[in-house]
C-alpha cells in the first residue's frame, strides 16, 4: 500500500524533526566544540563549586525539543479534526490494445 503525504504531513515532519535535532544534535555539537563541560550540565569540582557552565543554555535546548513535540501534538490534533483522507475507489478497466 502506498502512502501519500500531503504538504502538511511533510511540514510537520520537517519542522518537528528539525527542531528536535537542532536542540539535541546540532547544539550538542556546538557544546562539544565550545569545550568543557561537554554536556548540558555545569561542571563542578570536588567541593561542589561550579567551575564551568554550558555554553548553550539547557533551557533553550530542551525548549527546542519541546517545541518539536508541540508541533507533533498540533499535527495530531489536526489529524483528529480534519476530514479523513478518503481512498478513491478506482477500478482499473481492461482496455484492448489497438
Amino acid at each position, binding site marked *: 500500500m502506498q502512502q501519500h503525504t500531503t504538504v502538511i504531513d511533510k511540514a510537520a515532519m520537517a519542522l518537528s524533526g528539525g527542531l528536535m535535532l537542532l*536542540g*539535541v544534535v546540532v547544539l*550538542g555539537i556546538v557544546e562539544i566544540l565550545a569545550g568543557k563541560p*561537554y*554536556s*548540558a*550540565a555545569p561542571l563542578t569540582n570536588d567541593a561542589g563549586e561550579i567551575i564551568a557552565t554550558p555554553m548553550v543554555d*539547557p*533551557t*533553550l*535546548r*530542551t*525548549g527546542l*525539543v*519541546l517545541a518539536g*513535540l508541540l508541533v*507533533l*501534538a498540533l499535527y*495530531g490534533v489536526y*489529524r*483528529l479534526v480534519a476530514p*479523513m483522507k478518503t481512498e478513491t475507489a478506482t477500478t482499473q478497466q481492461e482496455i484492448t490494445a489497438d
Partner: protein
Amino acid sequence: MGFHSVGTPSPLYATVVRNSICEVTQMSYQAANPLADDFELELGGAWTAYWLAFLRVVTGWWFFHAGVTKLIEDGLAYSYGPMYLKQMTGTALGPIPVLMGEHLGWLIQAMVPLGETLIGLGLMVGALVRLASVFGVFFMSLFWIGNAGFGHGLVNSDFMGLLLFMTMIVLATGRYYGLDAIIEKTKLVKRHPKLRYLLG
C-alpha cells in the same frame, strides 16, 4: 551468448544461470525497505509484530509498576507530585509546572499514581495505546525537564522513555497482539474511523 546457439543447456549451466539471476535480484537495494535482503522487517511481518508487542508490554510494565507501587503506598494522595512540580522553576516549560503544582495539587496527587497505572495497563493489554502514549509523553516531558539529569547530555533515560512512547504512537503498536487490533474491527470504530487515531 544465447541458448539457441548451443542447443539445450546442460542442467549445470541452467542452475548456474538461475542462481546468478536470483543473486542479482536479491542483492538489489530496496530504498523503501533497506532491510529486505537481510532481515524481513515489514510492518506486517512476524518479527516486527513480536518486537513491537514486546516493547509495548515492557514500556507498559515500566509505568504500571511506577504507578501501582505509588497507589499501594500513598493511595490517591501522592503528595510528592505537587512538591516536584513546584520546584521546577526556570525550565523551558516556564511557569506551567509551578502553577500546576500550586493550583492543581489535589488533582496531581491523584492523577500521578492513577495516570501512571492506567497508562501502563493500557500499553500492556494494548488498548487505547495511542491515547495512553500521549499521556505518557506528557509525563515523560515533565520528568525529563524536571529531573534535568543532563550530566551526560540531553539524551538520557528519561528522554529515551519519552521516545519510546512516541514510537508507540507512530507505529500504532496496540495493533500487534493488542486489544486495539480487536477493538478497531468493531462497528463503532468502523462508523467513527477517527477513533483509530486514539487506538492502535
